[in-house]
């Protein structure tokens, strides 16, 4: 029962996170590519309830940042005027599902104040909006690559477990080969073969394809085990005795047993692949500017001065940690479920 509740909590959390990222254009107060060149490395905008005069406001408001004369990229709040936070405000244009143009944003403040919930980067681009849009890339890469991996894993696992003999031998040896492949170096090698400017979509699909294809071996081995144990069960032997075809047995009796494994594997693989994409983008091998991904957002931390001076540049890492924890608790809950089922 406790496991079920944990699963619910984790699932709701993941769903809302994915929802926010899916509708990044609506949730994000700013356009992720727009450079506010007067505001490089602005710290996160503070939400206030008490104004400079000591009055309490029920609606949170912000004071705009203004650059200080002394020091490099130093800002202070200008307390002359309060800008309250509003819901459903008009803002920069964005596309819903890639085609429908819209202007309404979930929240925002009135110009000239700007809302930088997670500060800005070197070019004055809003980190919060970039994290949301970057999440689209990173999560989509994780999910798609997982689907590819599981598809190949299921196929190879079924083939080798069900048909056995030389097919089993060759599939499993191939799987071992893939298991020992240093995937990061493989990805680096593949990326370096690409021409100078492949479009962002192409790079993305290629990344996903490579990450996904390399990772089929582990699920394949697990699924092979399940298929092996299922195929020798008495009811399977019985249905074979009644003349059931291989395809029928696979579909009716074998595949349903792999679902649990598939779900658990999916929950384990998604964060792993998200991290794979983040790693690649971190090394500058992912999508090119100005498209954000969590990896390219974190890449600025490679500069020592950014690392020690602007703590809000770590924000994408927090998003990454949350997603990973969310998926791993789901995987954990699935696993507990599986075990209690099998007992």
């Amino acid at each position: 029962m406790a496991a079920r509740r944990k699963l619910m909590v984790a699932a709701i959390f993941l769903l809302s996170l994915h929802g926010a990222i899916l509708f990044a254009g609506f949730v994000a107060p700013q356009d992720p590519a727009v450079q506010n060149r007067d505001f490089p490395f602005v710290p996160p905008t503070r939400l206030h309830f008490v104004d400079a005069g000591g009055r309490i406001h029920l609606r949170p408001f912000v004071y705009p940042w203004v650059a200080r004369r002394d020091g490099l990229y130093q800002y202070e709040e200008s307390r002359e005027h309060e800008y309250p936070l509003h819901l459903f405000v008009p803002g920069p244009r964005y596309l819903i599902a890639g085609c429908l143009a819209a202007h309404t944003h979930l929240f925002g403040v009135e110009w000239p104040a700007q809302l930088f919930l997670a500060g800005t980067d070197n070019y004055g681009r809003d980190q919060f909006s970039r994290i949301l849009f970057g999440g689209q890339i990173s999560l989509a890469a994780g999910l798609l690559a997982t689907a590819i991996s599981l598809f190949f894993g299921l196929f190879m696992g079924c083939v080798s477990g069900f048909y056995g003999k030389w097919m089993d031998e060759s599939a499993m040896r191939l799987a071992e080969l893939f298991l020992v492949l240093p995937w990061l170096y493989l990805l680096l090698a593949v990326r370096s073969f690409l021409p100078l400017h492949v479009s962002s979509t192409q790079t993305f699909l290629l990344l996903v394809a490579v990450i996904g294809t390399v990772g089929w071996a582990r699920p394949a081995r697990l699924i092979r085990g399940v298929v092996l144990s299922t195929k020798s069960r008495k009811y399977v032997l019985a249905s074979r005795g009644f003349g059931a075809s291989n395809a029928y047995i696979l579909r009716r009796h074998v595949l349903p047993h792999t679902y649990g494994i598939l779900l658990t594997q999916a929950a384990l693989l998604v964060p792993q692949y998200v991290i794979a994409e983040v790693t690649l983008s971190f090394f500058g091998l992912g999508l090119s500017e100005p498209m954000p991904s969590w990896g390219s957002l974190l890449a600025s931390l490679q500069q020592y001065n950014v690392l020690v001076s602007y703590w809000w540049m770590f924000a994408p890492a927090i998003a990454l940690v949350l997603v990973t924890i969310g998926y791993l608790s789901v995987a954990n809950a699935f696993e507990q479920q599986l075990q209690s089922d099998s007992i």
Partner: protein
Amino acid sequence: MRRLGYSVTLLLVCAVVGSASSAPRPAEPGEELQISDHPAGQYGGTLVVAQRSEPKTLNPVTAADAPSREVIGRLTADLIHINRSSQQTEPALAKLWTLSKDGRIFTIKLRHGLRFSDGQPFDADDVVFSFQLYLDDKINSPQRDLLVVGGKPIEVHKIDQYTVRFTLAQPYAAAQRIFDSLAMMPRHLLQNSYQQGKFTQAWTLTTSPAEMAGMGPFRVKQYVPGQKIVLERNPYYWKADRSHHRLPYLDQLTFLFVGNEDAQVIRFQAGETDIISRMSAESYALLSQQASSRGTELFDLGPSLEYNFLVFNLNDLSSKKLAGIAAKQAWFQDLKFRQAISAAIDRDAIVKLVYAGRGAALWGNVSPSNKFWVDQSLPHPPRSLEKARELLKAAGFSWRGDALLDPRGQAVEFSIIASSSNTQRTKMAVLIQDDLSKLGMNVHVAPLEFRDVVNRVFQTYDYEVSIMGLGGGDADPNPEMNVWLSSGGTHLWHLGEVKPATDWEAQIDQLMQKQMVTLKYKDRKHLYDQVQEIIAANVPYVFLATPDVMVGAKKSLANFKPAILDSNTLWNVDELYYWGPASSSGARP
């Protein structure tokens, strides 16, 4: 117990031998030392500097990369030297020189009684031998170009043991400046390998220190691959201070190889290094926070002589299989297109966001800090997207929605390559991408490994637009010849031109050749101003910005006089010394 005693004695012996060998020698009779006029200091201490990368070679004739040249510069000396602080020439190994009336014959008198760092004497034979090396086209020294005047190599003759005559094919402006940084090489060590045709393999990093010698303030003591190179005092160095103590003051000079600027900053912050050269404005801001409490001092010397620019690939691609790029050259060849890009770029934003305000925007190839040569009348048009759009419209471009179309209806799309290890140039590319997107150009930023960028720009021509940086060596226009002459090796936008591809390139050729043989500064300046104007009007490069030269050093280091010319901090390393009781740094491992 006996063994312990024995090893202690051995250590002592080693210590005595070690220090005796590199202790400064007293001046010998007949030795013409150069007397420096800086405040006299005291002996002792080790200076530690961190370099981004390891030198590739210790061979002064073949070295082309900055890390090698930085180390070699401390190991060797030249005949006539450009004082990095005053930017004027001064006597070095040559005590004086005379120029014939027609400006073609240069007679140099060497100092008497000088010795290489291995104790062997230095004389005119070494000078003649050194020039033989620099001029040998089989060795192909990067300095060779400068020594070919009017199409003919300089002729070098020994008159007597201490006199050498140089004959130039035609008068050459500021001829004494070409001797700067031409290291004098020891004939007794290198003649054999040269005669066997193995000179280019001589003096690598792993060569034993006993087989190398130079006229510089230091000599090689130890090289640890991947970590450091340790130099020790040259006991025979030819300079002394006012009280006739032989320089240098420092016992040792250590170059650590740390990989990147961040590592340089961390080492300097931790007090492990004594000097930091050429840091970014961000590092400067970071280090200045605790500078005084850490006993360090930082200097912003103003804009450097380097210029960063956008270069369009206008190379002849007919022999290459690069049809995609060749198709885009129609845009790049259009002057209005290049002018539009120049007008659309927000240079102030580059200075502000890339150099954190510590730099200067550029509209020409000469930095504002090059006071002798910059053309003050060059226009500095502010950024204007309207003007850029007008120029594009006049060139037949049009818009569909937001996208810019060329006269044939093709969408304008290209990529800018930049070295990924140079974060400043990739940042410029991102800003330019955003600027040009406002004109409807679809620009991609492609950060590539530095060697890949160089290879594409110089060899394969497989790029569309690139961000590069040049200059910074000398303030004089002559080292710039290879950039602006249409036949020059760094004529990046169109390499290997047999004859000037355009009228204005022909005009630049003429003016540059003429300024080279004009001896009066005023006339030369007039010619070079014209060159700068032609370049600015025709935009072969879109000039962007130049960073300030920012350096730092421990306060305990005396006589520290950083300069905007290379090497910014170590040019007077022979005069540097530590205040107070012989330096804490001596105790460091």
